[in-house]
């Protein structure tokens, strides 16, 4: 065999070896990713089955992953025998209220911290960031007391078992302020200066220049806040005592009895609660990509 063909064979073997290594690597990568997908999506898939089955058949052996019937009794029970619709409306008001107010506060504060000069700016921003270090649980009791005492001061607008009490304490988010400030800082300084030379006031610069340019970031923050508040459990649990003011998360928790729990109903309630938020996420998904790209692209 000539030297040339021997060399070709060697190259061929090397290529084969490389492709095997690549294949092994991708199998491992997929296995790890698969594990993560299973851990995150598994529980959601798991609740689909019991939601469409009767409670008595839930604990059959072997466990049934796919329902063998299309039983809608759990949903019917939920809508007719519990306050589910009320909880849903409350959750929507709560999550939307927090999102709208938080976005207003975060974008305005972010603008001030990013582009305005005022005494103590660095210290105040440091304090805002410092509040990130305080665990939510530590704030629970003082916030509860504050809201309870505010009842008289605000003529019942902010208090226990009120929308005000539910919404207002959750609108303060240092992370949102930080995110908005960071985004505004990425906008070219020249734009603000050009607008100032053109005679625009700070309010006009904010509304006509900054807000339109930071739309992707605002949408992303809005979705984050909405999703977080839709799934918020702790604060609504603390601040609401009546069924009329409860939100979905707390309402579903009350479905669990001391001795008997109707898991089929709980699964149906969980499924119905997840549906709108999943739709919201899917609808706005492209904004996430835009927002994450925003800083990377030069004007």
């Amino acid at each position, binding site marked *: 065999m000539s030297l040339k063909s021997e060399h070709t064979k060697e190259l061929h073997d090397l290529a084969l070896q490389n492709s095997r290594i690549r294949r092994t690597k991708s199998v491992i990568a997929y296995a790890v990713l698969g594990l993560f997908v299973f851990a995150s999506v598994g529980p959601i898939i798991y609740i689909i089955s019991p939601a469409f089955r009767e409670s008595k058949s839930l604990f059959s052996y072997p466990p049934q992953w796919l329902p063998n019937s299309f039983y809608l009794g759990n949903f019917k029970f939920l809508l007719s025998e519990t306050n589910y619709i009320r909880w849903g409306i409350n959750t929507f008001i709560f999550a939307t209220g927090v999102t709208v107010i938080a976005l207003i506060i975060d974008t305005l504060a972010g603008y001030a911290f990013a582009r305005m000069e005022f005494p103590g700016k660095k210290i105040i921003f440091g304090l805002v960031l410092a509040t990130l270090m305080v665990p939510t649980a530590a704030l629970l009791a003082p916030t509860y007391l504050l809201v309870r005492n505010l009842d008289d001061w605000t003529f019942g607008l902010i208090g226990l078992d009120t929308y005000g009490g539910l919404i207002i304490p959750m609108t303060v988010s240092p992370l949102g302020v930080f995110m908005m400030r960071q985004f505004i800082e990425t906008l*070219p300084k*020249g*734009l603000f*200066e*050009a*607008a*100032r*030379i*053109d*005679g*625009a006031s700070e309010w*006009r610069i904010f509304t*006509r*220049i900054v807000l*339109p*340019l930071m739309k992707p970031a605002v949408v992303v923050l809005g979705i984050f806040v909405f999703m977080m508040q839709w799934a918020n459990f702790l604060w609504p649990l603390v601040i609401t005592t009546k069924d009329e003011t409860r939100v979905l998360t707390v309402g579903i928790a009350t479905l669990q009895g001391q001795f008997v729990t109707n898991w089929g109903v709980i699964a149906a309630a969980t499924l119905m609660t997840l549906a709108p938020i999943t739709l919201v996420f899917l609808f706005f998904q492209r904004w996430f990509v835009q927002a994450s790209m925003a800083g990377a692209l030069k*004007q």
Partner: protein
Amino acid sequence: MAEVIIRKLTKSFGDNTVVKSVSLKVEDGEFLVLLGPSGCGKSTILRLIAGLEDVTSGEILINGEIVNFVSPVKRNAAFVFQNYALYPHMTVRKNVAFPLETARLPKDEINKAIDEAARILELQQLLDRLPSQLSGGQRQRVALARAIVRKPVVFLMDEPLSNLDAQLRQQTRIELMELHQRLGVTTIYVTHDQIEAMTMGKRIAILKDGELQQVDTPSETYDKPANTFVARFMGAPPMNLIQGRIEAGVRQFTFNGDGILVTLNSSQMGLTDEVLSLQLNAAVCLGVRPEHVRISTDLSVEGVSGKVKFLEPTGADLFVTVSIGIQNVVVRCPPKTPMQIGSTVTIAFDMTHTHIFGADGWNLRRSN
């Protein structure tokens, strides 16, 4: 249109003083260029005039009125930014309309002003495009349109051509000058490009480390540089600066620069013997531009002999670097001049265009 005066203008950022007591008068309708290397404070002066920075000390007057504490818009100065600073989410029309809408002008007036600006800058076809759909030159024209639409009394331009390629830069330079001729608005133009400064400015103000070095017409700054900095900064290749001392000769003073002996004819140099005598034995610089040095391969010609070190043909000229002892002198020759590296040549200086810079670096002609 307006006259702009700055008096003892100083700007500090913390401990760092970037503009040091600069005084300058820009005549009504004048095109003044602020020229200097990066970090010399030229853009800061422009920003101070615009009101984008607060003055540390000194005064800025526009049309006789002190504007130190007047808001940018009330100064009625338009600013053209280096990176254009167009609003990326607005069309060209919206960009140009923005200052007028902010001033709450009636719609038909705004449309009229946009149409006029678009006609002057040939933007009619681009009015509905976004800035991202425009070329660099087109964006620059939109930035100019946004500036002129307000009918400002002063144009402040911060290196507006630096983002354009060489060809477009030259073309836009001509357009800017035409615009200035047409509108006659007082213009202060910042650049670090001396060609831009020489070709555009009626006068040039040269800055170094926040201090004004010279304010003069382009030809004066080139022919009679105030100091060694201006001498080196203006012109490519820069002026030859030869270190040496002034010595007393039999009848005249001589310059001795490590092997370069030059008899100084004070009257030819626009100096007096008194001025030269003050610099006797002091370390001075003799400055002469490459085009004012004669070169000859004939060694019998009177002058200083040296060796050809480099040849730099640029097409229009041939630059010959002659080494004399430790000194190098660049000479400009016609392009086809026969020269060889290593050959011995004689050089002589045209004394009417030769300068002596004193120990402090300033041209002795100025103290004359």
